[in-house]
């Protein structure tokens, strides 16, 4: 007899895997534009083969019919080699299988900085920059919002609360928008900070000044994100805590004379932690996708910029590769959270049902 918890976990794993499969398949359909991208590649192969045969002196003397035959057979080999001779519907399942086994294959056009066309390498090369910038930003934002919200919920109706609540509309504008304005101020006008990129060009030789240069380049995008997303986050956290702080047990604690700091930590923060942790985990994973627009505006060589470029080149393998990795990561996080809550919180009731 399998314990109920194990059965629940197995069921969740199955469900989430199904979700990943469906999401991946949808991405494959869209990224290939229902086979449209393949047509582009086919015509490109045809063109390349024709050029090759024309420029090869060995084939100079051949009569036109034989040349045509030669080209046709070479094109066919190339198509077979890439699996393009089968209809898209069948191929889409090959793609699906490869994607799900993380056999991400080779890109159509894009290369990594080391010149490789392996999608895995391209992704691994860009991921650290994105983590550096956006995971930092997400973590910073999380703590600022959490602490700010907790603090404000205690100052309900006071001056500082009113001021910060009135700042919430700032967050109706996205990070990339503030980035443009910051570049306008700190680069165009004041010439203080760089307008784009990861490091100075040429990159400084020793690691320490390299590090400083990267830090300098991080200032603008990081501040843009903080300016944009702090306010609404504090506002939401404050509301969230306010709603929790009207619970009966909090009022009882206050009536009992528990000091305010302790009320905040023990009676408000602790029971509201699960949804907060969920949000943090999901936000951290999403941050790995980078921010496509911010990275594109700043030409920050991360995953988001890579996706933007891949879309521009119609480089389906790269797009599919990034999406699959993202889907797996997200599904895995959801699963872990599910399991933790299943064990910790009896109300969520894994064992119950």
């Amino acid at each position, binding site marked *: 007899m399998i314990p109920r918890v194990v059965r629940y976990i197995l069921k969740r794993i199955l*469900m*989430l895997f*199904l*979700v*990943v499969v*469906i*999401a991946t398949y*949808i*991405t494959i359909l*869209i*990224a290939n*534009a229902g086979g*449209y*991208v393949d047509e582009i590649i086919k015509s490109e192969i045809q063109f390349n083969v024709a050029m090759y045969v024309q420029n090869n002196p060995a084939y100079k003397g051949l009569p036109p019919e034989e040349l045509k035959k030669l080209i046709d057979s070479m094109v066919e080999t190339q198509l077979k080699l890439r699996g393009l001779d089968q209809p898209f519907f069948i191929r889409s399942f090959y793609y699906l299988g490869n994607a799900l086994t993380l056999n991400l294959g080779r890109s159509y056009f894009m290369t990594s900085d080391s010149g490789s066309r392996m999608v895995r390498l391209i992704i691994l090369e860009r991921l650290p920059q994105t983590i550096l910038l956006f995971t930092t930003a997400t973590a910073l934002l999380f703590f600022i919002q959490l602490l700010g919200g907790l603090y404000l919920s205690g100052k*309900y*109706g006071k001056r500082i609360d*009113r001021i910060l*609540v*009135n700042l*919430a*509309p700032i*967050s*109706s*504008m*996205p990070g*990339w*928008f503030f980035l*443009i*304005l910051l*570049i*306008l101020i700190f*680069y*165009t*006008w004041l010439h203080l900070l760089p*307008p784009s990129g990861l490091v100075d060009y040429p990159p400084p030789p020793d690691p320490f000044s390299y590090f400083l240069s990267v830090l300098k380049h991080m200032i603008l995008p990081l501040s843009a994100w903080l300016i944009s997303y702090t306010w609404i986050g504090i*506002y939401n956290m404050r*509301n969230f805590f*306010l*709603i929790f702080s*009207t619970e009966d047990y909090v009022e009882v604690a206050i009536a009992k004379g528990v000091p305010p700091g302790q009320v905040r930590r023990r009676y408000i923060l602790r029971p509201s932690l699960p949804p907060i942790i969920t949000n943090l985990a999901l936000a951290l994973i999403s941050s790995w*996708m980078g921010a*496509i*627009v911010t990275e*594109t*505006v700043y030409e920050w060589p991360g995953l988001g910029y890579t*996706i*933007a470029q891949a*879309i*521009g080149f*119609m480089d389906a393998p790269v*797009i599919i590769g*990034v*999406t699959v990795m*993202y*889907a797996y990561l*997200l*599904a895995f996080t*959801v699963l872990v959270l599910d399991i933790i809550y299943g064990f910790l919180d009896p109300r969520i009731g894994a064992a119950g049902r």
Partner: protein
Amino acid sequence: MSSAEFGLKGTVRELLRYKGAVLGLAIIIVLVSISIYAVVAIPYDKAVEQWRESGYWIKNPKNAAPEWINYFSGKKLPKSIYLSGEGKVVRDGGRSKLVFEYSFGYYYDDFPSEIILFVNSNVTRSFYLKASFLRPDGDHIFLGKYRIKKGENRIYVTNKLDLEASLEKHVEERLGAKPNFSITIEKALFLAYTGKQEVLKGGYKIKLEALTNATNKDVSCEVVIYGKVHGLTGTDHLRRPLSIALIWGTPVALSFGITAATLIVLMQLIIATISAWFGGRVDMALQRVTEVYMVLPFLPTLIMISLFYRISIWTLLLVVIALSIFGANVKTMRALAMQIKTYPYIEAAQAYGASSLRIVFLYMIPKMLPPVIPSIILSVPDFVFLEAVLSFFGLGDPLLPTWGKLLHDALENGALYKGLYYWVLEPSALLVLTAFSFAQIGLALDKIVNPRLREI
């Protein structure tokens, strides 16, 4: 949920108590008026045509700042000077020629940006046109001899390389030394010979001699000395006045944002309520779909679809809606619906035999509507900016001029590097105003509808 007690009138009255909301409403009224003006004054076809046709704005300066910038900077930047008029037939020995003489005053603090001669000729045989330039200090400069064919001729005087070389030499001679700045044609023509980059203010003359025996019925000329400021809003790299895109971007942004926000939240509401009401398998299926949507990256998917299918902004709107109706909101709304499901009046409805459809659409959704209205209004700016993001990637509507497209053009053409502030700031200001007004109203409504958040 207590907002049901307020009713519409009460809610509006309550809303007007918030200063931010009043300001927001005022801004929205202005934006709506601009939208109506745009649609009435510049019909869609005309706006698209003017924005797309490259020759339409040839007599505007490139990358010119708005005129009002002169009030703020100490320097008086030049406006464009348009010179035209009929020529005189002059007999010179046995031959006759047509002479156009234009004089103008130049009292600005900066050099013009460009000079173009427009010559229209109905004469079948081509002829030569000699152009010369007389400065207030009496210096006479020969601008070159150009061949005029039948039809419309444009002579880009300031792009002639040989003229630039000879003017460079001329300036050096006058100054007695090589200047410490680079010499362009427009600079050399208006330069005071002091060794500094200064404009020589005073009366100038341009003389065009058409070496033909045609009358002035057949040949007409216009000289345009392009300035560095133009109109209320300035121009872009293709000489187009930004005002068209700013004005036309307003109805596009408002309708895109409001339609997307409203439809998405309403669809989410319906899905959440159905999911909560039916429960069981339906609930299960809808939950799974929500998870698939969570795993699919929204923006890349949207960009891919609009890139591959090159769709108009309104089709794109449908895609945006389709991609967002299963967002994270559904979960919170479902929780709310679960709560309402247990209310006595729902039980009563069930007891007298109301159908599920009736209960969902007539009893549950209306009850849930008030608390979600703030979220509709709060999400309008998101979609206004989404339109800008799509334009940013060169997607969005291929024809319509929008705020996002202005920003895209500005960044693409180095406005940040060249210091063309107005180009970035004008569309940004409108985006800020829109976002600000909706956010103010949304937050105020949020406080009214969720009384726990109301300030003391």
